């Protein structure tokens, strides 16, 4: 009886609040341009939270969810910007690609907007630091949709099988581990060479250990040449590893997903990946189970300046708002999203998105705990290889990495090609 009455009361409240809302809340339809399907990854986050916002706050609010493939994202957004028709909300790439939009005033100043709304503290300070660093601006102009550390993931069973007792902490140890694995008939690494970025990440890892976390930023600023020891040695190492068969046959044909699945199903012992990987690892489909995969940070290079507490970090793809289309209705949505993303993500997918979390779920997967543990060790962070490059240079870096892996190009030529593009543009 009490329950029934309570339900009735609740319904009444809902109706009342709905009518109240109908009278008060502005009607607004926004377009969200995304690279994730509605039921995948951040797509779930964006659509579910917006649905909640509509149900709880503004029933007059509605949205259209548009999908574009990740490969096509930059092109799509650039052309929309050129015709002055950016979507209200869009997923984009952080850092260099965003800078022209900031300069032309196309995207909303997030720091300012969140300050006005009084919810700036909902953003994780680390994420804000990464984002503002990437665009070299005091304010941030994008919302994080992830907070990731990157490093090497390894299959514990295969390491044990090959007699490797501890995760490598230096490149020399990693080399020894590879030899042991090869001797045991295990493919040491898998890499998604067909998708290119997983391969350039391996060069980046070496560079940040050899020359420090800010090496590529220095190159981009013209303080250092791209033809440097870090890039040349890192590229050489990648090529050597290919030649030694550490990545198996034809690594330039393997897509990222296959490479990741190979690690989980025990066909390769190591994989370089970011902590977004925990979502796949924690899933019930993971053949390695909830404790079969381990993580180690990028090993140190002898004679290099990098240390084991420096990580390669990023905020994934980010979310921008069109400055021209921003109004009170969108502001209310923004406030709601920023206030809820952190808790929603940790509870529903066990992932960190770069927002403060107030309610942790009762049980966290081993992998989430593992990543949280890594986060606690971070003292300095580097970004990914192409973060400071424009799109032409990014294309060069990524196309050439395949040639490098195939031995069609030397490490020296690889570095020189980057410098050439840089010189042509500056």
């Amino acid at each position, binding site marked *: 009886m009490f329950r029934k009455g309570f339900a009735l009361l609740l319904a009444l409240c809902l109706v009342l609040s709905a009518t109240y809302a109908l009278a008060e809340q502005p009607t607004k339809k926004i377009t969200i341009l995304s690279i994730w399907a509605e039921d995948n990854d951040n797509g779930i986050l964006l659509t579910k939270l917006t649905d909640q916002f509509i149900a709880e706050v503004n029933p007059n609010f509605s949205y259209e969810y548009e999908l574009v493939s990740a490969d096509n994202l930059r092109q799509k957004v650039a052309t929309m910007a*050129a015709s002055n028709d950016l979507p209200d909300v869009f997923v984009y790439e952080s850092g260099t690609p965003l800078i022209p939009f900031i300069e032309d005033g196309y995207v909303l100043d997030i720091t300012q907007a969140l300050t006005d709304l009084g919810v700036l503290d909902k953003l994780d300070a680390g994420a804000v630091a990464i984002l503002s660093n990437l665009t070299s601006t005091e304010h941030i102009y994008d919302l994080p949709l992830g907070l990731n550390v990157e490093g090497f993931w390894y299959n514990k069973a295969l390491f044990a099988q090959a007699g490797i007792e501890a995760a490598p902490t230096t490149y020399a140890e990693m080399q020894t581990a590879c030899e042991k694995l090869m001797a045991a008939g295990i493919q040491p690494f898998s890499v998604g060479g067909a998708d290119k970025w997983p391969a350039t990440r391996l060069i980046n890892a070496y560079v940040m250990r050899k020359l420090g976390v800010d090496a590529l930023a220095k190159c981009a600023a013209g303080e250092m040449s791209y033809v440097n020891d870090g890039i040349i040695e890192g590229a050489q190492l990648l090529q050597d590893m290919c030649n030694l068969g550490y990545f198996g046959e034809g690594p330039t044909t393997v897509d990222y997903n296959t490479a990741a699945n190979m690690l989980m199903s025990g066909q390769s012992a190591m994989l370089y990946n970011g902590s977004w990987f925990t979502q796949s690892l924690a899933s019930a489909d993971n053949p390695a189970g909830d404790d079969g995969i381990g993580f180690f940070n990028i090993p140190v290079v002898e004679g290099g300046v990098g240390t084991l507490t420096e990580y390669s970090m990023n905020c994934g793809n980010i979310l921008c708002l069109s400055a021209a289309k921003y109004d009170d209705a969108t502001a209310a949505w923004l406030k709601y999203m920023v206030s809820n993303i952190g808790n929603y993500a940790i509870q529903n997918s066990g992932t960190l998105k770069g927002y403060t979390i107030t309610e942790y779920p009762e049980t966290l997967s081993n992998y989430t705990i593992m990543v949280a543990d890594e986060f606690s060790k971070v003292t300095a962070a580097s970004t990914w290889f192409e973060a400071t490059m424009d799109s032409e240079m990014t294309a060069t870096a990524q196309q050439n990495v395949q040639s490098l892996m195939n031995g069609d190009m030397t490490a020296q030529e690889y570095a020189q090609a980057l410098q050439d593009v840089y010189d042509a543009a500056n």
Partner: protein
Amino acid sequence: MSRVLRDRRAILLFIVPGFILYTVLVILPVLWSAYYTFFGGMIGSSKWSFIGLDNYARLFQDKKFAAALMVNVRYIAMTTFGQVIFGLLLALMFKFWVKRFGSSVRTIVFFPVVLPVVAVGQLFTKIYEIQPYYGLLNSLLQGVGLGNLVYPWIGKADTALIALAAMDIWTAMGFYSIILYGALLDIPGDILEAAEIDGCNAWQLFRRILLPLLRPILLTCFVFSFTGTVKMFESALALTRGGPGTATTSLSMYMYNTAFSFQKTGYASVIALFIFLLCVFGARLIRAFDRKD
């Protein structure tokens, strides 16, 4: 008769709708493209400005452009010849070898034509696969004792373009086989009989009788195939995404990237114009064979 055929209003009605569409969406853009070539930056952006002939000067120094041109030319050569020659072989097979189930065989051979190119690309990615497991091609090679030929076909610069051409030949050869088969059927039976009585062997029959008779239609097939291959975009994007390196990056792909991802509208227009000239040149070349006799 001529009163009917001189009907002004009918002529207007027949020509004008197509004319307008064609002029606005085909001719105008070509001219417009030519105009853009004198500008730098991205259209609509603050950097869009008149730079004279700089884009043209850049073209001649651009190694990536030269590489893309070479890829395109090699691809056109391989694919065009492959499609038409395999089409011809299939047509000859239909005509002289296939006795039973003729229409079923022709139906099956034609069917890859209706598959979406992107779908075919995904399919062939798996056929050429090498890691984690050998795909069909590599396992076949291994199965027949040619294990040393196992290769990452689409992962290496020296074979990726060939692998791509092979896929596109597979897709389209059925199409040309049907056209050429139709032409073979049009050749009167008594010509073939007379040749046989004269003691022609198969090669002579082909060389002396069939080839001359088929020539006009073979040329048409070459034109078809050329117009399809000169743009080289869809299949390369689906199978190799232009890789490895730039081994399968065509002019169209390079132009597309330059325009939409590097945001250099003017320079991309120069490349676009060049593709047009390539097309004109190719069509002239094929026509030159037409006029030989």
